[in-house]
């Protein structure tokens, strides 16, 4: 999957979910690179901001858009990667910053 295709996926996801993509092109570029690595490494669009297990089934909650994006966007105005934003955060602009991890720790430890 090319970075162009991944960008289309991001844009389609944002449109479908009623979110906005971050206006920070640097962040988008970083994440495009990360997604491309994960597609080559795992074969699927795993969240680039979290450790993957290599198992699509175990990582299904962190396939983009992850299961935590809706509550994170509701609570913080952005997803964990700072890729998808709500309208208010989009209009505020500014440099993206990290938010707390919502994924349960045991998910990272599953065999």
């Amino acid at each position, binding site marked *: 999957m090319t970075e162009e295709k991944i960008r289309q996926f991001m844009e389609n996801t944002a449109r479908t979910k009623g979110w906005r993509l971050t206006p920070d092109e640097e*962040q988008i570029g970083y994440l495009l690179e990360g997604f491309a690595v994960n597609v080559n490494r795992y074969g699927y669009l795993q969240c680039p901001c979290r450790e993957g297990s290599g198992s699509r089934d175990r990582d299904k909650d962190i396939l983009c858009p992850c299961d935590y994006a809706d509550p994170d966007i509701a609570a913080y105005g952005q997803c964990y990667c700072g890729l998808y934003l709500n309208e208010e955060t989009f209009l505020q602009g500014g440099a993206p910053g*990290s938010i707390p*991890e919502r994924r349960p720790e045991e998910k990272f430890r599953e065999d």
Partner: protein
Amino acid sequence: MFDYLDFEEVPGKDTGKDLKLLALSTCGFCKRAKAFLKEFGLAYKVIDVDGLDKSIRLRIREDFSSLKGKAVTYPTLMIGEDDYLTGFIRPLWMNTLGLEEQDD
């Protein structure tokens, strides 16, 4: 802490503190953290955890949670033996590291 990891040393200004950055090669905020440390020219050590064997990654998780009482997330910057920053929030990193914005 994490003496068993093979960190890459990035030369730069000595802060007087041992800075160790635990990162994912794919993560946007990890890349921002690396760019931040480069911007200020700080000496630090770095490792991309996603390139390590699962057993080592689990050991990092167990060691961090047992010593710090919380789950490790990336990026994490270890500052000496006791302090650390998790996630990348520029103003917080500046304050914690005692840095000031530089003129262009």
